[in-house]
């Protein structure tokens, strides 16, 4: 079982990079959805006031 720790850390790094990226894009998507709904409300308000 020589080098088992290298094998473990290599797979851990691979999965961490993939899941880390997925976490970041999921967070970005939540932020964008919030921003879009706020912008839609702003536009609707301005449209009515025009």
């Amino acid at each position, binding site marked *: 079982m020589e080098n088992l720790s290298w094998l473990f850390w290599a797979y851990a790094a691979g999965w961490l990079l993939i899941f880390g990226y997925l976490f970041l*894009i999921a967070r970005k998507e939540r932020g964008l959805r919030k921003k879009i709904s706020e912008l839609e409300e702003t536009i609707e308000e301005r449209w009515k006031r025009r």
Partner: protein
Amino acid sequence: MDRMVNEFDDKPAFPLWFGALAALAMLVHLYLVFVWVPTEATMGIVQRIFYFHVPAATVQFTACFVGGIAAILYLVTRDNRYDDLSLAANETVVVFGAVNIAMGMMWAKPIWGIWWTWDARLTSSFLLLFLYAAYLVIRPAAPVEARGTICAVVCILGMADVPLVYMSNRLFRTQHPSPVMGGGQGSGLAPEMMKTLFFGMFAMLLLWWCVLSVRRRVARLERAAADLTRRAHELDDLRRD
């Protein structure tokens, strides 16, 4: 007023069954790697990094081609959907490229005794990753009206670099091992190793497609947010006039 985020964007980025299939494939792949496949005689257990390292490179190259073809289609049609696809694919090139290089380094250290060497394969892989990272830096900095075109050109250059990376350990003597498939006399893998490798590639491609679909939807949302911001400013200007 039309809603910018249509119903399509509220649906899952990929079908649930597809995500379940990708997750199942990755679990089966882990079983094959850690339980089923025999241990390689010379390098021992650490050689099992190979079954994730090579599929990550396969996904990286596939993403380069998908991004490059989407960039060409964007230049021909000027359809923003292709630009979104290209952006999504290029970002996954960086992610899977980083996975490939990080795992390669962790394999190199116990076997070669060094983390890194500037041989043809490693250097060309690093340059490919660097080129796509540069794409991600250039994109937000480029002027909006020319952004798609500039990015498409960078992306096509990246795609053109892939054959060079692939052929580097065939064309030059490298520290990196010769290819195990089509690498000439003495190359090849045991049948169990070959099956595990191919299954790994299949599983990783399924996973990549899920990641790509999610990123593509985020790219559409980014475009919708930019359009809405512009519209809000236009209405503001009209009101002031």
